[in-house]
């Protein structure tokens, strides 16, 4: 293998590995942002309730407490978490594409094999994350009460699950079936 070819193969493999690292770091940042957004969107609000005066013993002040009232909202964190998975999946796909191109165009080296293996692992991880997210959204929706607004229900459960299914389908097809053609110059 010539020095130039070796350098190109090395560069492409390192790019592939760096893309996976960038994807994972972006997922981390978006997950933190999603958790931050949860501070401002809560399914519960708290209302001050004063106990009935008739129930209070004589000579004592009626007791007060905050009652938790269920008022579901569409939380941006649902879509942010999905965005994080999308970003990671896209970088993993991109990394896999580069690794495949490197393997097709250059002689296999330990680094190109490593890049290929890690891009495959990243794609599988992205798929697993998507499945876990979809399943968690479904299970969470079961615990929600029935008297929920249809719009909120649709946007917080049905749409995210549909989007996740679409993402999983796209990633699986793109990574394992509809692989982009590699030109062999």
């Amino acid at each position, binding site marked *: 293998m010539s020095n130039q070819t*070796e350098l190109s193969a*090395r560069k492409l*493999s*390192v790019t592939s*590995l*760096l893309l*996976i*690292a*960038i994807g*994972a*770091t972006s997922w*981390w940042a978006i*997950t*933190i942002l999603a*958790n*931050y957004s949860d*501070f*401002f969107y*809560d399914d*519960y*609000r*708290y209302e*001050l309730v004063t106990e009935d005066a008739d129930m209070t013993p004589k000579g004592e002040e009626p007791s*007060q*407490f*905050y009652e*938790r009232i269920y008022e579901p909202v569409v939380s941006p964190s649902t879509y942010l978490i999905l965005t994080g998975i999308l970003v990671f999946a896209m970088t993993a796909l991109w990394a896999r594409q580069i690794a495949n191109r490197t393997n097709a165009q250059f002689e296999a*080296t*330990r*680094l190109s094999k*490593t890049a290929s293996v*890690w891009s495959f692992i990243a794609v599988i991880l992205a798929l697993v994350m998507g499945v876990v997210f979809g399943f968690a959204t479904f299970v969470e929706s079961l615990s929600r009460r029935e008297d929920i607004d249809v719009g909120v229900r649709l946007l917080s459960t049905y749409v995210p699950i549909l989007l996740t299914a679409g993402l999983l389908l796209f990633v699986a097809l793109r990574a394992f079936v509809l692989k982009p053609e590699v030109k062999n110059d």
Partner: protein
Amino acid sequence: MTEQQAKKALSIGFASPIIGAALGVLMGLAIFDLFNAFEEWTTVVLIALLGFSIWLGATKSGDALSYDNKHGGLTAAKGAANLNSVLAIVWMVIGFITSLVMGLSALQNFRQYPEAEMGQQPYNPGAFTVEFDSSVFFGEFIPAVVIVAMSMFGFVFMLVATSKVAK
């Protein structure tokens, strides 16, 4: 690279992660015993120390493997490179999980609850404000960012180091 240098590199390749891990554990224990606390920046230093020792081991075992690929006679080189690759994976996973837990815990500390006073209104769990706190930001959140960046990009450098091509 001579055979002697390759053997020396192989020895460092095996020894470096073991020495780094032992030093890290002992240093962590000593800090905890001396100060009875474990600050976030201490975790950063310990993870960096572990990372450096694995990176050094990966680089040296990569050199030895490169020599073995060209001249042969250094069969343990592949084992050292594989050992360092596995350690790099473990280090990356630990670093990533630590940073995520640390980052999420730092976020919770940005919430400020009004101080409860006797005879006042009852406790309201929803009455918190989210305020920027520089001690939480620099003392808890930034270490988490440093760890995640270090573990992800350090991992790439380690993988590259164990995959050197013979020249």
